[in-house]
């Protein structure tokens, strides 16, 4: 970008003032447009929560009414009476926590080895992890399902958890982090006669706390939202997780809209609220995940 003519010092205070006013005006305009967008994002959530408190008659009125005449928890009570919602919620929580933790336990050491150590077969093994990221689920889901059924794991939590322990994505995320870590600290451990294990445990892992927290959150969220694999391998309603549970709830019981929205509200709010507190971690991981491809 070259300047075509020299900048003349112009004492144009009035022009400056008008420029400033225009800048303020454009800021207000941006704010207005962005607020409009934010309303488009938030209004559906508001509608969901309001509907969860309406009577069926109120929910089916046209033109719709915004506020329920009486704020009652009847829909929530009916939700818990119709399906084992609490159990599904609990199933989702503990399996997501467990799988995310197992992901970290298996991925952190592997990512460290791929980033720092040199060993035969390194490219091949790392390539396998990348391959698992590239291959679409439509390809692997059929053989893995047949394998699970062969092993007698169908409709068990084992079928859900075991295939998810290793995560190519978590390995890749932590690999990126370890690779960016300065080498000097570990070198000093190694020169002092420490082993790679000492270097990993006392230098690399403490330094990676933030990256590991981000990877854990990302993995937790992925499992919390995971739909197709639980849909295929879990069948009995006491083993169902929230996403599939909500869908089967709608299909089997043909419940009315307010009860359905009560279920949607209760399954949406926890992560939305938690997200407010950890959003930085999560979006950082999401930015790195852009590479996942």
């Amino acid at each position, binding site marked *: 970008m070259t300047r075509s003519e020299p900048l003349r010092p112009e004492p144009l205070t009035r022009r400056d003032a008008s420029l400033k006013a225009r800048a303020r005006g454009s800021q207000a305009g941006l704010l207005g447009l962005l607020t409009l967008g*934010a309303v488009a994002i938030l209004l559906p*959530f508001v*509608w969901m929560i309001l509907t969860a408190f309406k009577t069926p008659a109120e929910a089916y009125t046209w033109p719709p009414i915004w506020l329920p005449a009486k704020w009652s928890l009847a829909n929530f009570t009916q939700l818990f009476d119709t399906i084992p919602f609490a159990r599904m919620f609990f199933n989702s929580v503990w399996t997501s926590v467990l799988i995310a933790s197992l992901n970290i336990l298996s991925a952190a050491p592997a990512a460290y080895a791929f980033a720092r150590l040199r060993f035969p077969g390194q490219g091949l093994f790392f390539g396998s992890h990348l391959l698992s990221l590239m291959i*679409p689920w439509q*390809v*692997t*889901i059929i053989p893995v399902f047949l394998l699970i059924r062969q092993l007698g794991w169908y409709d068990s939590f084992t079928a859900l958890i075991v295939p998810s322990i*290793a995560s190519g994505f978590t390995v890749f995320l932590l690999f990126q982090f370890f690779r960016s870590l300065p080498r000097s600290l570990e070198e000093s451990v190694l020169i002092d006669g420490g082993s790679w294990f000492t270097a990993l445990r006392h230098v690399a892992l403490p330094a990676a706390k933030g990256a590991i927290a981000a990877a854990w959150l990302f993995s937790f969220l992925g499992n919390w939202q995971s739909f197709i694999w639980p849909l295929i391998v879990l069948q009995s309603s006491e083993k169902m997780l929230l996403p599939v549970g909500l869908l089967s709830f709608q299909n089997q019981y043909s419940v009315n809209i307010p009860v359905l*929205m009560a279920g949607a509200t209760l399954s949406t709010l926890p992560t939305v609220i938690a997200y407010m507190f950890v959003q930085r971690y999560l979006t950082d991981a999401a930015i790195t995940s852009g590479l996942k491809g």
Partner: protein
Amino acid sequence: MQNAAPLVTVPARKRRASPMRRQETLMALLLILPSTLGILAFAVLPIAASLGISVTNWGGLSKPNFVGLQNYATALQDPRATSALSHTLIYVLLAVPTGVLISLTLAVWINNLKAGWLCTVFRTVYYLPMVTIGVAVALLWQVLLAPQGLVNLVLGWLGVNGPNWLGSPAWVLPAVAIFSVWQGSGQGIILFLASLASVPKDLYEAAQLDGAKPFEAFRFITLPMISPTVFLVLVLSLIGALQVFEAVLVLSAGGPGDSSTTVALYIYKTAFTFFKMGYASALAWLLAVILIGLMVIQWRNQSKWVNYDQV
């Protein structure tokens, strides 16, 4: 983000004595063992198995018979497969350009805000749908898209008579696209924001001194600088949209009729409703070839663009 350096780095330190080397190899194999076993058992071997299954007529229970490339030949002539492909492509054309354009616009607007806390607020709000359970928000949108729902109410204010979105073959794919854009634009926004933050500020100052208008600054500075990210978001959205599954399954179950049955949904039904594992595997490979092709194109471009390192 990703840079051009090779993925597996070679340690800078000098070659150590052979016992040290052996110790390093042993240690490394131990560290990668759990993860590698999992990846081999549930990703690498299944890929090979899937290729094998795709040349049989296996139903999943009886003995599989080898049928050669029959399944692939069938797929190319199967009217339900081609119609699933055309539904998917219509959806891609509706959702991908709209989604990329909207998230780019919103990101540029957020980036131009002076108050930092407002940037955080908007980024957080726009990302919200990404942290929800897909089925829950899809059920919500089923309510919003009903003939007498919130969407048609808002359209009514604007003087537009809204269609029966999910009940008409013509409007069901646009409806799914609207839902996906609402749900997914946060992903593009945060990637664009990260990229926009890396554009050197002095470029804008220089342009301002030259009397460039805001749009010109965008066209000649911002856009070229973030073009690798635009391409990345475009490819990621394409890959996601070509596999659209959950949204159509919940919103319309592929209907009315077959009018919103996409490729991924057709593969799922072929395998798990009709138990044609061999045929479904062949279909999955045809889809995989398209998706992997896109990823390869993205990787090639990634190394071509120097700007990429600045993301």
